[in-house]
């Protein structure tokens, strides 16, 4: 089969895997409710009593919701499939490891983008305005893809225990939230704090969201978008490279 036809064929099967994931793992009431409520409560616990304006709070809230939802389920899909003994069947189908991983990432991406509309709607109801909706949309798309790939990276260790993977994910996810300019904007961080914050993809999303909603960002938009794109590509490459090696060891 010509290369182009193989790519189209695998892209279709990747969408099939994403639809399967959404149907089985994401479209459950508790998953959706937890996806919205957990970051909202975490955010409120750090902002209530600090007399912050809505236009400061909403960009941080969107960032947290997007980050937590896009990385919520993707780390545990592969361990779940291993535990439920469905992975070997899936691997025996005419799909590549890349197709399986991309399917899992696409499902997480869709979930993250969908749920991030909730804090945006809350913000609009509270009177915020979005100065550059297209820039924000581009940032949401790039960030959701990168976060979903990051979630998939957490599932690289060939374990079939979702709890183990969740523990690994939590060790990374919580510190990332604190270094990404959500609670303290980048321009108020000390130089060393800013240097650390550049390691986190969430930093660039939060910065762009602040620019679009609050009217003030620290980095140029192009830098934020390029950084988000670079993180998405890098994390996808890492996920695929390692899963190619570890997936057969799960069986």
């Amino acid at each position, binding site marked *: 089969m010509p290369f182009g036809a193989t790519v189209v*064929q695998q892209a279709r099967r990747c969408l*099939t895997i994403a639809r*399967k994931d959404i149907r089985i793992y994401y479209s459950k009431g508790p998953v959706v409710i937890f996806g919205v409520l957990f970051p909202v409560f975490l955010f409120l616990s750090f902002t209530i009593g600090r007399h912050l304006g809505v236009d400061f709070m909403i960009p941080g809230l969107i960032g947290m919701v997007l980050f937590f939802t896009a990385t919520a389920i993707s780390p545990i899909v592969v361990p779940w499939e291993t535990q439920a003994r469905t992975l070997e*069947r899936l691997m*025996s189908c*005419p799909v590549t490891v890349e197709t399986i991983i991309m399917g899992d990432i696409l499902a997480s991406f869709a979930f993250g983008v969908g749920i991030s509309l909730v804090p945006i709607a809350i913000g609009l109801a509270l009177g915020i305005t979005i100065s550059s909706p297209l820039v924000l949309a581009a940032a949401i798309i790039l960030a959701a893809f990168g976060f979903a790939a990051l979630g998939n990276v957490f599932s690289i260790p060939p374990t079939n225990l979702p709890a183990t993977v969740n523990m690994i994910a939590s060790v990374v996810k919580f510190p990332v939230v604190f270094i990404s300019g959500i609670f303290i904007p980048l321009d108020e961080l000390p130089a060393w704090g800013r240097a650390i914050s550049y390691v986190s993809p969430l930093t660039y999303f939060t910065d762009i969201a602040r620019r679009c909603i609050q009217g003030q960002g620290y980095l140029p938009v192009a830098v934020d978008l390029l950084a988000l794109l670079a993180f998405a590509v890098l994390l996808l490459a890492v996920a695929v490279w390692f899963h190619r090696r570890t997936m*057969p060891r799960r*069986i």
Partner: protein
Amino acid sequence: MVCIQVDNLAKHYGKLLAVDHISFKVEQGEFFGFLGPNGAGKTTTVRMLTGIIQADEGSVSILGHKAGSLGAKQMSGVLPEMANAYTDLSGWNNLMLVAQLYGVPTGEARERGAGLLQKMGLEPRKDDLVKGYSKGMKQRLILCLALISDPQILFLDEPTSGLDVQSARLIKGLLQELNARGKTIFLTTHDMDEANQLCHRVAIINQGRIVAIDAPEKIRLATGGVHSVEVSFNGEASIETLANLPGVNSVKKLGDKYRLYTADPGELVVSVVNFSGVNSLKIVSLNILAPTLEDAFVALTEKETK
């Protein structure tokens, strides 16, 4: 035409050589059995043939395609050992999901799926979630998943293991029908009766090496082994006395029967009849048994282990 060509295939797990440089061929349309005790390397071999795991050495070709390539997978239907369908989907949705992963056109998938579910007795429960299915129903569904793409080759790893009689019969019947229609079937099993009934040829693997490969009947005859006479009396007989009859090598009590192993079953039958007369016992049943494939299997695997 060669359908599966395996050359010098080997797989290590750390220091353990799970599959030790095996080679064999399976012809198109053949029903090929792959037998061996637990841990012999059967499942590892099937996983290398289906491309789930990579071989460390050697090569496998499936109708000219490298094992594990998209071309090889597209032509194969696989029923992995201990595999499961998605329990949060209905049987029907599982079938349609696999059909999409094989690129089967929707109309064809629906028609074929309905036919398979009907044949496997799952049609009335097709819209129920798989989590409510019994083990036999799940296994029948997984066989349907392997068949939804109408593959040319079927790899089946212990398809009837632990199933109720009805489910096992249904699956065996379908496999015979598929083979009669020209499908090549690679069946992994440790059920000797199943292999004997279904397979044109079998390979016996032990400790990662193939110890015999031929038609079941030829393996049985080539291995030789002792015949036995199975007898049941209307009362208790002394095992020691039976063991002392001329030509008896050993005696086993199996329920209400005695199995006497011998090299000369004809002479032993006469001795058993005389024994019953002398001891005032009536013979309820008496059969001469030839060595079975199971005996050949045990003899071959024990010899290799020693």
